[in-house]
């Protein structure tokens, strides 16, 4: 569906992305992960035919984004980082306008708008002015405009940005619902959103692609990830001695006979850790999955550094 080779984009002297190369297959849901300013939006703008690349080649469904942009535009639906909304229109009018703009016939427009509203949960606000909508609904309208013409490829730039936790869950469901009917490329810097909705990840840092694969593949490549948080009552030295065989241990807190530790080991090890702790005569107060595998991979790949926006 998408082939990217040597993609580079300069803004003046500054290279926003450099020599990106990846391929995305039909029907995949791909997470595009990176810190703010890593080059996600620039890449998606090139794929969305909004920006032209400085160098490199992007082919979408057999058509080049530079030499055959018109053909590419007929196959994509793009949600920029700021949803492109006309405040004075109602949701229904706006979606109908976008559908017509993207080649849906007048006869099919009503049905397509209805389907898009159904998928994104906008039915009840069809007649409302966009200017009166909450941020969550505006974001949904943004997604609806990207899919109203049933494009083969959906490019969503930070669809959950600025949403509250409940709206994030709802948006995640919307994106999950697109699986199978569209190829989806969704960017984010929010890790759970990516790990729960996407088949495969592309991790970009400072304009270059630093890793790609499924969460498991990345975990293997990076020598495993994840951690376990353990809280026990008992001797600190004993606790360390029991947990050492499972991996590196950091003591977070030790006071009043209670020791809190972080164990660098796969969360799958939790049952054995529990047995070992109890078997050693320590009282197990808490045993929990630590920061996610993806988070630890991501932090290692990006060295925990902030990049300039």
């Amino acid at each position, binding site marked *: 569906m998408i082939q990217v080779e040597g993609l580079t984009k300069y803004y003046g002297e500054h290279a926003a992305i450099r020599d990106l190369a990846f391929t995305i297959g039909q029907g995949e849901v791909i997470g595009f992960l990176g810190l703010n300013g890593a080059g996600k939006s620039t890449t998606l703008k090139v794929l969305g035919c909004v920006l032209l690349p400085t160098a490199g080649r992007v082919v979408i469904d057999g058509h080049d984004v530079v030499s055959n942009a018109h053909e590419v535009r007929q196959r994509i639906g793009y949600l920029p980082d700021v949803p492109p909304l*006309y405040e004075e229109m109602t949701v229904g009018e706006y979606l109908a306008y976008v559908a017509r*703009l993207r080649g849906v016939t007048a006869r099919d427009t009503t049905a397509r708008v209805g389907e898009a509203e159904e998928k994104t949960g906008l039915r009840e606000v069809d007649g409302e002015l966009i200017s009166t909508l909450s941020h969550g609904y505006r974001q949904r309208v943004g997604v609806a405009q990207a899919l109203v013409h049933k494009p083969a490829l959906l490019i969503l730039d930070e669809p959950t940005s600025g949403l509250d936790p409940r709206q994030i869950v709802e948006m995640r469901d919307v994106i999950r619902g697109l699986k199978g009917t569209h190829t989806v490329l969704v960017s984010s810097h929010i890790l759970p959103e990516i790990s729960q909705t996407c088949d495969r990840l592309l991790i970009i840092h400072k304009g270059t692609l630093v890793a790609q694969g499924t969460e498991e593949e990345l975990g293997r490549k990076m020598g495993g990830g994840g951690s376990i948080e353990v809280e026990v009552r008992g001797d600190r030295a004993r606790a360390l001695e029991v947990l050492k065989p499972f991996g590196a241990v950091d003591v977070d807190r030790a006071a009043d006979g209670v020791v809190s530790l972080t164990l660098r080991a796969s969360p799958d090890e939790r049952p054995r850790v529990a047995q070992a702790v109890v078997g050693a005569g320590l009282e197990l107060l808490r045993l929990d999955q630590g920061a996610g595998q993806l988070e630890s991979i991501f932090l290692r790949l990006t060295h925990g550094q902030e990049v300039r926006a």
Partner: protein
Amino acid sequence: MKALLIARRELSGYLRTLSGYVVIAVILALNGLFFNAYALGGASKRSAEVLSQFFYYSSGFTIVASVFISMRLLAEERQTGTLPLLYSSPLRDRDIVLGKFLAGLAFLSLYVLCTLYMPVLVLVNGKVSFGHVAAGYLGLLLLGSASLAVGTFGSALARNQLLAAITSAVMLVALILCWLLARITEQPLSDVFSAMSLWNQHFPPFQSGLIHVRDVVYYLVVTYVALFAATRVLEARRWR
């Protein structure tokens, strides 16, 4: 045709927001005041003379209206972040520019239509040639179309609406002032500047009821060149 879709949305945007009506109302009021004070006032005149003065003042107000109507066309899309919607849709850049321009022209025509009550007042109290009125209005529309196209170009260049209005106004004033350059330069340069002037050589014939092909062609060429330039600006912006 995609340009018509864009034009329809843009026009409904003008009609649904207050700013468009405010622009029309204020300029119409000023136009009416000038008509009353200068065209109708003073020593008694023949109807054709009053009508000619009406078109004289209206031409200036039409240029001003064009600047205010065109300033939002593309700059607003850029300001509110809706340009990526158009850029990522299967449209040619010329469709975007043409659609925007047509909506502006339709709204400007609404303003021009609203000025019709003034020639009607002349008709009530005097004798008016319909040919004179038709020629004058054709002139207003052509002048408006050229100014609006320059405004569309300014709107494509600018980051926001205020800058768009300033840029367009500067370009239009420069075009109008070409006749001054024509006065201080020698031939053949003076002829070139004179022919380029937006108002001085090309509008007065319409004002007195005459339609010259060269004037019609001039305004159409300015319209085309400015819209072409606006399209080029949109294309160039994809590189940045």
